[in-house]
């Protein structure tokens, strides 16, 4: 068996180990590679930065713990930014499986920045129906969420003073890991009720959302852990996403090297078999 053949039939566990080491070592010994800010992430940041104090900021946490590594850092960075700007933060989720996690993350960031529940922020929880909830909120927010996550009537929350439906929302960001998510918020929310909107998503979903970004249907897009790292850099508070960027770069280099090597071995094997065929 030639070297190329042995390499192409290598035990896949060796590749897993290589990728594991390429991820683990930069996490243990960070290098601090520079992070360049993309225009799509800056779009969300600049819009929040331009909002006056006490504007209504709606954050829909449309993911569950399965997408936590990518979207949780995005949510934390966005909440920190919104709280620092003294916006009225209304959080909610369209994913039942993400309800507990969403409540925990909103409460954690609010406590970190000394915000008061009901006055500075509220977590409405989950309501069934997906896109129907968005339409319902567009007509009457209190009908979609008669009570918040803790069971308090939403009509009694001071943060919702003057907010009747989605038309009263100044800016909205959906952090989506699938459906319902960013697309549903655009189709059934922004397109119908005309509020400004940005998006955040997992890396897998990002290519599918770029058409919405280019056409101006959403004004910014935070894509995956990379997008979260950019947002953390913009707000000047580095967190888990920035810490993971060295590991991300190292694994990408490892995968590129593996793909190139695999192709080299494949073509060398093919060439060898062609030469053998000509001799035979």
């Amino acid at each position, binding site marked *: 068996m030639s070297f190329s053949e042995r390499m192409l039939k290598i035990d896949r566990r060796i590749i897993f180990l290589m990728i594991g080491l390429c991820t683990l070592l930069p996490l243990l010994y960070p290098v601090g590679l520079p992070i360049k800010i993309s225009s799509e992430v800056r779009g969300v940041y600049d819009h929040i930065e331009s909002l006056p104090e006490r504007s209504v900021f709606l954050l829909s946490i449309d993911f569950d713990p399965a997408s936590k590594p990518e979207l949780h850092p995005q949510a934390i960075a966005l909440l920190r930014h919104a709280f620092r700007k003294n916006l009225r933060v209304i959080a909610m989720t369209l994913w*039942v499986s993400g309800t507990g996690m969403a409540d925990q993350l909103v409460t954690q960031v609010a406590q970190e920045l000394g915000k008061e529940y009901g006055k500075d922020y509220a977590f409405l929880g989950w309501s069934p129906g997906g896109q129907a909830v968005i339409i319902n909120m567009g007509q009457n927010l209190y009908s979609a969420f008669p009570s918040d996550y803790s069971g308090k009537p939403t009509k009694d929350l001071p943060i919702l003073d003057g907010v009747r439906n989605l038309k009263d929302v100044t800016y909205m960001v959906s952090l989506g890991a699938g459906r319902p998510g960013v697309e549903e918020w655009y189709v*059934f929310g922004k*397109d*119908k009720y005309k509020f400004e909107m940005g998006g955040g998503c997992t*890396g*897998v979903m990002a*290519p599918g959302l770029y058409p919405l970004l280019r056409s101006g249907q959403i004004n910014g897009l935070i894509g995956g852990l990379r997008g979260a790292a950019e947002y953390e850099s913009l707000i000047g508070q580095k967190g888990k996403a920035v810490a993971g960027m060295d590991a*991300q770069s190292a694994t990408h280099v490892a995968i590129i090297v593996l793909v190139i090597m695999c192709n080299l071995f494949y073509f060398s094997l093919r060439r060898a078999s062609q030469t053998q065929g000509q001799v035979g």
Partner: protein
Amino acid sequence: MDATVLGAWVATGLTLLIFSFLYKDNPLFKLAEHLYVGVSVGYIIVKTYDTVIVHLVVKPIVENGEIALLIPVAIGMLMLTRYVPKAAWLSRYAFAFIVGMGAGLAIPRTISSFILKQIEDTVRPLMSMTGPDGLAFSMNLLNPGSNLNALIILLGVSSVLFYFFFSIEHSGAGRAVARTGVIFLMVSFGAGFGYTVMARMSLLIGRLTDLIEFSDASYGRPTIWLLILMIAVLFFLSRRDQEHPPDTH
């Protein structure tokens, strides 16, 4: 034991059990997989019951006397008639309501958002007006709104649409256009795959970050102890399989 510490041990244990699949399929992985499915379904059932049945149906009807809610409840209950063969036909009314309402809501909004708006963006002017009588062509590839990108998008959309147009044979000039469409599709698949790799690596980074955090003494070093335990169990299972190979018949 503090809830945070207990949570760290459970999270570390389950992460390591799932990672054990990378070595080979084993009972530890299956245990974690079944736990994941069971806990997820249980969580969803409890949250749905509490939110829908208790807070959106029972409380408003009993406490506020919102009797009108009985109409959607009745339509919803019709779904359950599928379990009674003689009355199963009643469930069609509920399905008809859902399909009719869903289609009515989705079709106009989807056409507006994904077809009309995207066509509008695709047929942007290929030249820009710079003054009262001047035209310019911006060549900046990094600017999504540049004229060069508008041209590339127009070319891509047209050639990919032509590639999926099967009513005429793709030969001669048509073949060149179809091949261009294939190139655009390949670039799109490549970008999608690149982002997928990035996403999967991000998930790995997330788990490894937690494992590093939980190797701290304040949690009782669950990462180290459970890793040693898991390796020992995998070694034991491997030895047992060698001595008594599983019966595959």
